[in-house]
């Protein structure tokens, strides 16, 4: 077997740089890299000649860890990948396992999943808007965004008991029904939130400083977006009219009415417009989900896969046995492989799950949107000004947990 040594190249710092240029290190502790992204910038004056991301600082081997867990134990791992969109990750994984099992979930669970997914999108976009605006210098927006995000985190805490690492979805449904008063809380939020979006928009959209920092900056061409495997708002800002929720519906998105915002300019401002449009669509989808929410069970009728109710488990022998078996031995999944892609706030979040017929997955691979979207950094920044790097990174909205896994 050939030794790996021949592929270990020189440290990047020594291979880039010439007489005219200098190499500048940015990160991994730079506050505007949204985590632990390290960038190596080769600059000529204030112009960037080359930019190379160095990732892996948050690599925790989640894919390997999953192979040692039961199927249901993987769910908490998925929260920790994209920690700003836990429900999207939960959804992608449980959909993949349900597809492997051939399991159908009851309508109430489906609508609750939809509603929470769109709330997750709002949550994630609010963090993006706040931090992105702050990076560029508009401090006020951050405080307003986090005020509303706090409300969504409270909702997550109400349903899951956790603000960020929710692990609320289960294979075959959701872990427990919505608490009392939850829907009123969401309705109240959905009533005033559209006005709040306009407030953020008022602060930024016509603001000359914001326009100056974002319009025509960090361009991505449509052809490049496809070739660089970009997805989500990053690609839609460049005119790629593709949204998995509309074009390959999953989890009941075909029952909702919504538009997919697309911009063609391909700059930071276009991506900002796309995400602002998505905020408006998402809150309307939350309202539709509440209006359509039926009564009924929240877990599929599959006793060998779904944990029984607490009440049944304490009173019925059969349920007690199933509970014991699932917790100690897991449930087996028929052999096969599936790929399930969902539209996470950042783009296509795909789970490739391979089963060998046992209670533990043979392989779980996450196709994370941030990992692919980071490809755009080269076309966005090269031959542009150093000061625009921060705007460019903010506009592709990467999460380093999602990049490194």
């Amino acid at each position: 077997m050939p030794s790996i040594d021949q592929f270990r190249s020189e440290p990047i710092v020594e291979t880039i740089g010439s007489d005219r240029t200098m190499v500048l290190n940015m990160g991994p502790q730079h506050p505007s890299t949204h985590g632990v992204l390290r960038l190596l910038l080769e600059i000529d004056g204030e112009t960037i000649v080359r930019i190379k991301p160095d990732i892996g600082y948050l690599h925790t081997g989640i894919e390997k860890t999953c192979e040692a867990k039961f199927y249901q134990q993987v769910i908490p791992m998925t929260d920790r990948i994209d920690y700003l969109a836990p429900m999207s990750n939960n959804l992608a994984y449980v959909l993949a396992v349900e597809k492997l099992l051939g399991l159908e979930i009851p309508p109430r669970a489906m609508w609750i999943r939809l509603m929470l997914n769109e709330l997750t999108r709002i949550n994630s976009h609010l963090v993006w808007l706040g931090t992105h605006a702050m990076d560029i210098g508009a401090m006020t927006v951050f405080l307003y965004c986090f005020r509303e995000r706090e409300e969504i985190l409270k909702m997550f805490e109400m349903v899951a008991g956790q603000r960020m690492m929710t692990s609320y979805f289960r294979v075959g449904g959701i872990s427990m029904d919505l608490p009392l008063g939850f829907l009123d809380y969401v309705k109240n939020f959905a009533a005033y939130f559209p006005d709040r979006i306009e407030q953020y928009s008022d602060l930024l959209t016509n603001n000359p400083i914001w326009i100056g920092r974002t319009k025509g900056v960090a361009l991505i061409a449509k052809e490049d977006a496809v070739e660089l495997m970009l997805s989500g708002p990053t690609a839609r800002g460049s005119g790629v009219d593709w949204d998995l929720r509309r074009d390959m519906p999953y989890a009941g998105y075909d029952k909702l009415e919504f538009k997919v915002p697309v911009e063609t300019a391909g700059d930071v401002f276009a991506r900002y417009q796309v995400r602002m449009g998505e905020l408006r669509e998402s809150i309307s989808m939350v309202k539709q989900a509440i209006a359509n929410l039926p009564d009924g069970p929240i877990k599929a009728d599959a006793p060998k896969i779904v944990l029984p109710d607490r009440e049944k488990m304490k009173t019925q022998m059969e349920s007690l046995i199933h509970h014991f078996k699932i917790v100690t031995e897991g449930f087996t999944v028929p052999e096969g492989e599936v790929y399930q892609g969902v539209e996470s706030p950042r783009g296509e979040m795909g789970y490739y799950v391979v089963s060998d017929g046992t209670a533990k997955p043979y392989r779980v691979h996450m196709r994370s949107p941030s990992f692919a979207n980071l490809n755009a950094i080269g076309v966005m920044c090269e031959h542009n000004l150093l000061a625009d790097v921060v705007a460019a990174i903010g506009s592709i909205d990467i999460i380093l947990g999602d990049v490194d896994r």
Partner: protein
Amino acid sequence: MALQPAITDLELLKERPAVACLLSELPGALQAAKFDRDELTIWVDSFNLIDALKLLRASSTTQFAVLADLTALDWFPSEPRFELVYSLLSHARRERIRLKVKVSGADPYVESVTGLWAGASPFEREVFDLFGIRFQGHPDLRRIMMPDDWEGHPLRKDYPVEGYR
């Protein structure tokens, strides 16, 4: 939604655009196909990988212009040990397929697809890093997740997961 048995008979699958396209334009490349859980998987031999991907991308009946994902599987201890997994997506036809290539464990390498999709570069680096599969023609094949001086490839099935190393 009860599970249907997987279809592996090529005769039953030859009507599918991707299979038909490969059979007519690139005879001999296609090794096997499987339709399972609404997903089509196609195995091609590694020498024809680039041609098959080019064909599926360009042909008007398939139009798989987007590479959605690239990863690998380790079937240790069976041989050929590795499988490269290319998930292709067609925006125009709203369809996915999975293209797989078997690679031997003794000297695992395939051609790089960075010439077709520049964005595949970090994905190939990740597979190289975590599985130790080389990609010929990759412009910058270095470890991406693990430190440069790391030994071994963590996602291989024979990589020790416990104990002192």
